[in-house]
Structures are given as C-alpha cells and as structure tokens.
C-alpha cells in the first residue's frame, strides 16, 4: 500500500493506493500555522479502516517550504560568492553577497586562486549567520575552488548548514545556482524541524515505511536526502496534480492538462507522456533558481471564480468571493453557471439559478447568462493555452537540424482534473477542437500523484579530454581520465555508474530505476589544425514518473 498526502492551500488530501486502485481517500482542512496536525489528522482518517503495517511507502507533498518563503520565515544566510569577471550581481540575489576573489573559467581552469585570509575576514563580518551558501562561477566545470572556500567557511563561521552551488544543480547558470543555494540554506532549518516532526509522527503510528518528499519536478526524495535539499520541496502542489494525471491517464500524445481548482486553472503541456519542464528552473520569490519544475501557467479561472457585471460587461474571476451560491455562498461563481447549464449536478439548482439571474443582462434568461459566463471562462483559459503553446513552439534551439526539421508543437488532447474539470474541461476542448479526457479519481489527482511519484535524481558528466579530467558537479567529483582513449561511450558509462552511486546515497534506488539520457553534447577541440581533444557533456537522470498507473471506476471519456 502506498500512502500519499498532499497539503494544499485549502485542503489536505490523503489517499491510500493498493494494487493500483484507490483504497481510501479523505479531505481534511489544511491547518495553517500548525501544518503537522492537519497532516496527522489526514493520515489517521485515511488509515482508520486499514492496517498501517501494510504501508510500504509514504510520500508527502507539502507547502512547508513554499509558505516559509512566502511568509519570510527563513534564516539569514551568509552568502559568499566567487563570481570572477562578468555580470554585476548587485540586486540580482535575495541578499547582498560577499564577493570573494578567485576564478575558474569556462573550461574549469583556475585563473585566480581564492584567498584564505579574505574568507576569514568575511566570516568575522558574518558572525551570527547560522547557515551559509557558497557558490563559484563555473564550479560545475571544476568544483575544487567552491569546496576549498566552503571548507574555510566551515572552519571560520561554523554554520549549522552550508549549501554549495554545485550541490543544487550540475547545470550552467551561476545566477540560478546562487539563488537556489541561498534559498536552500534559508529554509534548511524550518524543513529540518518539520522532517523530524514527521519522523516522530510516523514512529508513533508504527509506520516503518520509508518517507519521501515530493519535488517540484514530480520526483521524490527520501526524507533524509530532502533535509539536505529542502529547496527542491518548493511548489510541489501543482507537481502533485501533474503526477496524478500521469498516474491516472496513460497517454503518449502531446496534450495540455488543466488542473481546475477553486480559484485557478493550472495549465501544463505534455509531450510523449511526460510534462514539459520549465526552462532553467522555477522562480522563487521573484528570483530565478535552478529548481527543476514543471512548466505551468496559472490563469485566474476556477469553480469559485466570482462572476459579476462591471459597467454592464460580464466578468469572471480572478478573485473568489467564497463558495458558489449553489454550495451556500453569497456571490455568483462559475460553479453556479455549470450547474444551471446542466454540466454538473453538484449543489442546489435553485440557488444556482438565482445566482445566474443576478448576473443576467436585461431580458437574459439564467440559462443564457450561465452559457455566457462559461464562454467567457473558456475563452480566458483557451487564450492562456494558446500563449503557452506558442511560447513552447519558439523555444530557442542551437542546431541547424533542430530548426530545419523541428515539428511545431501542437497539443492533440485536453486532460482535465480538479473540482470543476468535468464541467469546464470539455468546453475548453470543444473550443480548441480537441478530444478530451477527465480521468476517474480526478478529484484527488494531487494525492494520487504524491502517493505514486517515483524517486528521481540526476547527474551531469562533463569530460574534457584535452585537459584529461571529467567532473560530476552534483557529487563534487573531479576525476582524471585517459586523454587518448576516453570516448563518449565511456562518458555515458561513467555517468551511469555515478547516477547509481548517487541513487544509493540518496536512497532513491528503492525500485529498479530506469535511467534516461536527457542531453548529450560532443565537440572536437581544434587548436591550429589539429584535434587536441573532445568536450563531452552527458546528462542522465532517474526518470520521474509514477510507480504504477492507478485506475478508478468510470468518469469522463
């Protein structure tokens, strides 16, 4: 049995999945301020009639990190950077950094050495910071300077935790690594405390199964590993829904998915059965980070979106004025329109008609007002879909072949989940002239996603055979290689070995993992008229996804 919990803004959902079916599910109110008590209540309720000893795995999607960041309940971070020449970083990081000397260039060659005395002096000024982050430009090409400086910081500042830029990402993009490392340290303590409380709660319930934390890219991390990378647990709510879709719908075609909640619709794009990732990473508090996340677009249309006339013009959302009138609210909402139009049978038809009467134009029937509302809501969602699809179609590529032979991205299916999906998703699909699916179990897609999410991890191996070394920044590895014999095949093989190592260290290898090649690059290094070596880059991941598909009775087509 798999136990999945998704802490949302309003509700905490918990499900138990057994043999690919939802065995139990509950919704309890989220307890803001005391997150843990709501989680524990959810667990106790969903396990009420089940034997907790049969739980093999617990996966948790939580807002703890997102909320800490939103509310500024984070620690002051000593941010020490080795930026070398380039962009002036002032104003681009969450806190002003201390800039240290030293520089590693684009090929990982040391161009200037860091100075120990400078780090010691900086640490004296930073006394009082209990956590730190250290990041060097091009440390992904050679992590040695970053590690050296981090060692000095440990010695002089003695922080409770220190995040290295290479630890949060093995990809180029210094600014994103800096911001990721900063926020990782900033939320480290609050997450560590939360993790300890969860562990205690599990012990008290005699649940011995391993606990996993959902990440923004839909993968999971064992709780212990998540304590080192808490920033990965940001924005997991939408990720849980997307994963839920993956568990509930087994489609390989290009698709657009809509998670239609109370106030917003989250739009995601799919290719070959996988959601498309955000370029670069997630934006945290307005700062670009290296946190891998799904590429989502939120639009202010949901079941509870407030419907009214503004100077005679009908308007829908983005704000909410409580629940729909059909469900006992005081103001008209999209759900009322769905009820009156006969697209849902949830809530009071009489109250819904009153709601639509209130927004009806002179001489307009409640039914006509309902349909006008739905056309407007649908048009807003469709416009956002068109925007994100056209952005996907013009993503830059760097090869001739990719431009000449690129096929324009076009979704061929609409997938809806969430409260108002049954009503709204078919209308969106109709307007886009696409088929649609609303999978059974879509109301708890988020918790299903959390329960069945697979552990993921990745490594980036970059070999420079002219210099005779390769690096795996995520693991802090810089290793000699055979300059004459090392091939791209060897690079992939080494990447496989390191990925397996990382999976074991992280505890992510709970099931047989499928590695997936994400990216490959190979360049000849030509000096004069001779090829003096090759530069190879291999990125390999344990593929995100669901442990197994989940099926529920009948729902949409």
């Amino acid at each position, binding site marked *: 049995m798999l136990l999945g919990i998704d802490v949302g803004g309003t509700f905490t959902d918990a499900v138990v999945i057994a043999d690919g079916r939802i065995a139990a599910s509950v919704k309890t109110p989220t307890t803001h301020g005391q997150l843990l008590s709501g989680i524990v209540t959810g667990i106790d309720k969903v396990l009420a009639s089940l034997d907790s000893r049969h739980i093999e795995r617990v996966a948790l999607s939580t807002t703890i990190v997102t909320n800490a960041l939103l509310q500024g309940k984070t620690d002051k971070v000593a941010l020490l950077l080795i930026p070398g020449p380039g962009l002036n970083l002032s104003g681009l990081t969450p806190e002003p950094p201390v800039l240290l000397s030293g520089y590693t260039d684009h090929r990982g060659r040391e*161009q200037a050495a860091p100075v120990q005395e400078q780090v010691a002096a900086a640490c004296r000024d930073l006394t009082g910071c209990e956590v730190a982050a250290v990041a060097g430009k091009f440390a992904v090409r050679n992590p040695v300077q970053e590690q050296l400086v981090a060692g000095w910081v440990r010695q002089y500042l003695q922080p409770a935790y220190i995040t290295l830029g290479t630890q949060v990402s093995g990809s*180029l993009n210094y600014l994103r690594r800096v911001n990721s490392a900063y926020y990782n340290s900033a939320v480290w303590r609050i997450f560590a405390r939360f993790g300890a409380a969860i562990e205690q709660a599990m012990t008290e319930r005699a649940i011995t199964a391993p606990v996993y934390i959902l990440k923004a890219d839909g993968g999971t991390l064992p709780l212990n590993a998540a304590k080192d990378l808490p920033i990965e647990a940001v924005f997991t709510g939408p990720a849980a829904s997307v994963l839920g879709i993956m568990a509930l719908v087994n489609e390989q075609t290009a698709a657009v998915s809509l998670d239609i909640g109370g106030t917003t619709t989250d739009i995601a794009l799919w290719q070959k059965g996988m959601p498309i990732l955000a370029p670069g990473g997630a934006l945290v508090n307005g700062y670009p980070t290296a946190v891998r996340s799904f590429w989502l677009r939120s639009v202010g249309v949901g079941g509870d979106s407030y419907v009214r006339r503004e100077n005679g013009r009908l308007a829908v959302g983005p704000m909410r004025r409580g629940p729909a009138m059909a469900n006992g609210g005081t103001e008209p909402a999209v759900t009322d329109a769905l009820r009156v139009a006969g697209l849902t049978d949830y809530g009071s038809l009489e109250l819904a008609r009153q709601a639509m009467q209130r927004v009806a134009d002179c001489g307009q029937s409640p039914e006509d007002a309902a349909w006008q509302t739905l056309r407007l809501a649908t048009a807003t969602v469709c416009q956002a879909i068109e925007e994100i699809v056209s952005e996907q179609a013009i993503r830059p590529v*760097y090869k*001739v072949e990719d431009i000449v032979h690129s096929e324009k991205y076009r979704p061929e299916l609409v997938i809806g989940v969430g409260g108002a999906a049954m009503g709204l998703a078919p209308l969106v699909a109709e307007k886009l002239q696409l088929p649609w699916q609303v999978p059974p179990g879509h109301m708890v897609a988020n918790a299903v996603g959390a329960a069945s999410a697979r552990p993921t991890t990745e490594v980036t191996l970059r070999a420079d055979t002219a210099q005779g070394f390769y690096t795996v920044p995520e693991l802090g590895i810089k290793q000699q290689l055979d300059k004459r014999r090392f091939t791209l095949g060897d690079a992939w093989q080494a990447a496989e070995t390191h990925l397996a190592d990382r999976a074991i260290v992280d505890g992510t290898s709970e099931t047989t993992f499928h590695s997936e090649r994400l990216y490959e690059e190979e360049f000849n290094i030509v000096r004069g008229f001779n090829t003096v070596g090759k530069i190879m880059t291999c990125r390999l991941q344990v593929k995100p996804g669901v442990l197994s598909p989940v099926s529920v009775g009948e729902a949409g087509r």
Partner: protein
Amino acid sequence: MSSKSLGLVFFPAFDWAITPSHPERQERLLYTRDQIVEEGLLDLPNIKEYRPQLATIQDIERVHIGVPDIVSLITDAHLISAGGAITAAEAVMRRQVDCAFALVRPPGHHAMRVVHGTRGFCTINIEAVMVEYLRRHYGLTRVAVVDTDVHHGDGTQDIFYHDPDTLFISFHQDGRTLYPGTGAMNELGSPSAFGSTVNIPLPPGTTDDGLHYVLDHLVLPMLDDFKPDIIINSAGQDNHYSDPLANMAVTAQGYARLAKKLNADIAVLEGGYSIEDALPYVNTGIILAMAGLDFSRVVEPDIARCPQQSADNTRYIAKLVADWRQLWRERDIIRREAVAKAGDFWQRRRHIYYDDSGIQEQQQETVRICPHCHGYQTVSTQSEGYPSGLKSAFAAVVPRNSCKSCRNQAQAAVHNEKKIGRHDHYFLQDKEQDLLTRI
C-alpha cells in the same frame, strides 16, 4: 545605469562547419554559449531570447545573384543566420525590444552581390539581406552599417557601393597587412554614392585608445551628419588582442564601450576566432552594454597580455582621422566633380578571390549615372575554380525608385547580352518588383 530591453537571437550552429578544422566550426561559439548561460544573461528581465526564423530564397535574392544559382551554393545554416538577423531586426521594428543582437553564425560581410562560392568564411551577406528586408517590409530608407570586424567588410561595401542611402563605415586592420586586402581610404563609393562608403584602415597594434579615438572623432560625428533611420553594427570581434587571425589589441572593455557609444539598433556577429580567450568575454560585454547594464566587471583573465599602443600608432591614427575629417567636410564638392567627370556611365573591373572555395572571379561593373534616379547597374562576371570549373554570367540590376528610362535600359542591356550569348547565365535583379529573374 538605465537598462534597455535587448532582443537576443543566439544561434551557435553547433552542427555546422565549413570543414572540421576550419575557424568556422562547431566549437566556435561553444565557450560563448557557456559564458552567456553561466552568467544567467538569458534570465535577466530586460533580455529576451528569440529563435531565428529561416530566411527565404527571395530574401537572399533581393541582395544576391548566385552563379549558377544561390540554392546550390548555400546550406540551411546560411538561411538560419540570415533569418536570425531578420528576426533580430523585426523584434526592434515591432518595438518588442529597444535593440537586438543577432549572435549567429555563419557570418556574411565578405559575401558580395554576385556569389560564386564562399570567401572569407561568408557565402551570403546576412546584414545586407536584413537591410533589404527592412527596406522592403518596413519602408526604411537611410541605413548606416558600422563594421567593427578586424577585416574589411568588402562584401557589404560591394553591395552598397552605388547606394547613397546606405552609409557603410568600416574600420579594420589595414588591408596591406591582412585579408582581404581592400578597404583603403580611397574606396569611397561610385560617383553618385560618393562618400557613403567610409574606410578607416588602422595600423596593426591599435588598442582601445586608438579605436575610441576613431569612434569619438570620426565615426560618431559622421553618423550624426548622416542621420540614419537605423544603425546596424557588423559586430566582428577579431580586433581582440588574442585573436589568432589578426594583429590588433582591443579588449572586451573596448568592445563593450564601443557598443554603448554606437548605440546600434541591431548588432550582427561577424568574425572573431579567439574562441576561448576573447569571444566569451567580448560577447558578454556587448550584450550587457546593449542592454544598458553594468559591464565594468567583464575583464579577460589574461588582460595583462594586452599590449599598449605605440606612440607611432597614436600619431598615425590622429593623422588618418584628421585626413578623413577633411575629406568628409568636402565630400559634396568631390561628389559633384566625380559625377561630372564620369559622364553617363562609370565602370570598374575587379579581380575577386574566393579563398574558401578556391575560385578566381573577374568582374566588370557598369553604373549608369542618371540625373533622375540612382541609375541601374550591369555586371559581367567570369569565374574559374576547382571543382566548380568555368562559370560566367551577366546581370542587370534595377534599384529601388529607378526611373522608367533606367528600367528599360537595364532590361534591354540583359536581353542584348543574351542575344550576343557570351555568358552562361543571364539575370535581371529588379528591386522594385522584388524579383530576381533568369533571362
């Protein structure tokens, strides 16, 4: 520093090379890509990345006459780099961004109007294709192209040599010391377009000081006088002190300050072959400068290698600039004299060498000096090379806004030649109709 919005078309063509060990190979912009991505420049809110469009054959033939045809001489990469320049320009024209940089390859400024093959790593002139696209689709007239590549932009000069509406300014390492050998001060444009071609041949060893002296005292005042609708920078980066193919001593700071002062609407990458030591830093500097951001920290790690400018060079450059200033002041008088002296037709014969394709071309151009319009031109060209063999063509070119008489004469000229039959191919390039016709 106030930031501006910058459109960036980055296309490093990671799967394209002239030959595996050629300077124009896959690796050329690899380290530049690494630096740009590592700096996070593409995440800055005022920098927007665009994917290049594919230029069409019609876009290319608006400028070029390929012998036997342009399609057989180019690859998809050329359509993308020209398309990238067009994408950059359109982002500016549609006011999506304040300015744009097409950081694309392969380059184009050695490609002339008639194309037999590849020379100086260039097959089609991507700036010229972009300029004529803008004139056709956005109604621009006065265009200034400032070529800051170390090599003389002889292709761009050739294409606009008879066009008084295009001010082409090239400063470069003196042609007596570097490919392609042209770009002397006395190449000034054909009589009707006299003074719209400006060549500033600089001595080897010129530094940031010399370059900015030329910029401040000559190039910027010329641009003020010409009052262009748009300024384009052919942003070659091989004046850098570490460039392996040239001998100048300009730094990333020098280039970045140049980009800031020039304030070009559109910059297009040209040459630059110090792929590890210069390009990552120069491109970062140019991008930051064009985006109105602080570029003062963009300094090469090996900056100590950069030589100082000799006193001789400083004196030489001061005299060159003084001579040019005098010529620029007197350009209208000299133009009238040149037009009067030429009579109805002006002619020149040239020998053109295609180093990459191993082709020798002999070309004879005739320009009609017309009192009513820019006049038409005819070109007779023969080339010889291996394996291309012997090829010849005759073409007449009808420029924009040409008078009826010139149009008729141009058509008659090419039909006449066809009757005589001395050439293999006959073309009429009609810029008014936007058509290149095979006769």
